[in-house]
């Protein structure tokens, strides 16, 4: 009891000086807890950001993906078999899973790549597309289609225009709902209802590709991909889109390295700030220590008081800093990712512990008090 009574009085007496150390600890703890909270939360946020790049897994026929050039004799898969596998492995991780069938049809005597797909899922699987006109909201809508920007320009088409597609001896027609600006190969394609394209090409129930967008950490995505690969029918194979997954892993690794480096740097800087204050405090306390020694105080008991004092300083500063830091990371999440990063409760004990260690490290100058000679101090030297 007397121990904490003395610690409290020490804190009260030196509050002027300790405010400086406390500010350093609170600031350090705030930045560190914000960074740690970001580090833990950024993985989810970045994964969500990466999902905006589109699919990260594709399912293609086992003998290779269909090429547009080879569309006349494409390698195909059974739509019902593949979708059945996907349904069996239903997971909240799957943002979208969309089948495709590519054919080369003709319109106005011009060959054009026609992609049959679930048009209601186009926005989810291709979130970077810009669209002039309207998205198609119904999977069963066979009367509307989307066309790429280059196709629209070549055929002088705009939303609400009519597009006639010929394939061998079959014909279909659709109304252009919107013009896609994808900045890639999609600009040269026509996107029509999957069933319509299957009928046009006389390939009922056949698909050439499934694109899947899976959210979650890279290891979670890999785990899902492995389970899906095992569940697929023999005629289908699964491939991760390496550019996306590798970029994701690499970026996450770099961000984590950056955050850990900054945490270490801030810990060192905070320790130096505390060190400066404690060096001044050590000078002030020489007389107190001399007197305590003359009363029979062992250096371990006296230092125990001072270390408890800096420990309390670290713990209180760490707690205040952690609260500020988690609030800061919440705000940073809103600013950077457009969604708040929720507080991770494990941040609080970690930050408090780090700050206690830093405060103790910063209290090294107090060790010099061990050499104080009571007779010298009491003589007033």
């Amino acid at each position: 009891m007397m121990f904490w009574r003395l610690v409290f009085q020490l804190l009260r007496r030196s509050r002027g000086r300790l405010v400086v150390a406390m500010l350093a600890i609170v600031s350090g703890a705030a930045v560190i807890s914000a960074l740690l909270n970001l580090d833990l939360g950024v993985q989810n946020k970045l994964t969500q950001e990466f999902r905006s790049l589109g699919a990260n897994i594709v399912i293609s026929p086992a003998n290779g993906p269909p090429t547009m050039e080879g569309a006349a004799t494409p390698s195909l898969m059974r739509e019902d078999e593949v979708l059945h596998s996907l349904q069996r492995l239903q997971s909240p991780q799957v943002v979208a899973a969309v089948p495709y069938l590519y054919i080369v049809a003709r319109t106005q005597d011009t060959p054009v790549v026609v992609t049959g797909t679930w048009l209601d899922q186009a926005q989810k699987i291709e979130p970077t597309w810009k669209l002039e006109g309207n998205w198609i909201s119904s999977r069963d809508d066979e009367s509307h289609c989307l066309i790429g920007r280059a196709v629209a320009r070549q055929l002088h088409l705009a939303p609400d225009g009519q597009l006639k597609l010929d394939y061998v001896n079959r014909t279909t027609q659709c109304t252009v709902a919107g013009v896609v600006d994808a900045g890639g190969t999609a600009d040269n394609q026509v996107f029509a209802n999957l069933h319509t394209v299957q009928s046009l090409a006389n390939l009922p129930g056949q698909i050439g590709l499934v694109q899947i967008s899976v959210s979650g950490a890279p290891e979670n995505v890999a785990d899902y991909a492995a389970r899906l690969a095992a569940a697929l029918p023999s005629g289908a194979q699964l491939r991760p889109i390496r550019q996306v997954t590798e970029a994701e892993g690499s970026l996450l690794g770099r961000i984590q390295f950056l955050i850990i480096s900054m945490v270490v740097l801030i810990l060192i800087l905070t320790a130096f700030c505390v060190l400066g204050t404690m060096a001044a405090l050590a000078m002030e306390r020489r007389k107190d220590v001399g007197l305590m020694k003359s009363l029979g105080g062992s250096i371990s008991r006296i230092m125990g008081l001072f270390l408890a004092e800096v420990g309390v300083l670290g713990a209180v500063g760490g707690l205040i800093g952690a609260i500020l830091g988690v609030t800061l990371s919440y705000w940073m999440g809103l600013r950077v990712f457009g969604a708040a990063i929720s507080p991770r409760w494990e941040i609080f004990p970690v930050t408090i512990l780090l700050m206690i260690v830093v405060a103790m490290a910063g209290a090294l100058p107090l060790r010099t008090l061990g050499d104080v000679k009571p007779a010298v101090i009491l003589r007033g030297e």
Partner: protein
Amino acid sequence: MATVVEIENLRKEFGSVRALDGISLRIDDGEWIAIMGPSGSGKTTLINILGGLDSPTSGRAIVDGTDVARLDEAGLTRFRAEKVGFVFQQFHLVPYLTALENVMLAQYFHSTTDEKEARQSLERVGLGDRAEHLPLQLSGGEQQRVAVARALINHPRLILADEPTGNLDEVNEQIVLNLLRELHQEGHTILMVTHAPSIGRLADRRIELAHGRLAQISATSLKPEPV
């Protein structure tokens, strides 16, 4: 009567300065000794060695059976906590602790604290109503009485008082001297450094130091000493 302090050929040198030069002395249990002499004669050095605050260069200084000269740092710390109680001229109270906490601090370093006993110790020196006051809120005399209460709290075998009235006015000087007289009557052994002959005469024996040596011993009941 049992001997509490036995000093043999005690020497203390600070570089080339010889502060104590072969002092031998014996103090019996319950004696009140006044150590006198001019500045620089070695009075405070002697009291510091007997209190375990300093170590002699050579010789023996036995207090309550313990040779202070042979103690290491940890031994000196225990010695200070258990065997002696200090009263300094400058009071040396911890300024941010109350009178009560200053007394309890000595208890804390000795063993465990007992607030009730610490209050009784303050009441004993007439400061029961000032227990919660900080040193700054107390007069010099009151601060010195707190220091006396602190010195007594662990029931030491030897009370070492270095000019205990040196910083006090006449009224407070009398209060503190009366307190020391009471302690003496209760059987405490007191070793007091003073410049004032009038105060020295209150002691059983007066020991004069000069240039680190015993110059004279006078007493109401003189005991033979090896000078």
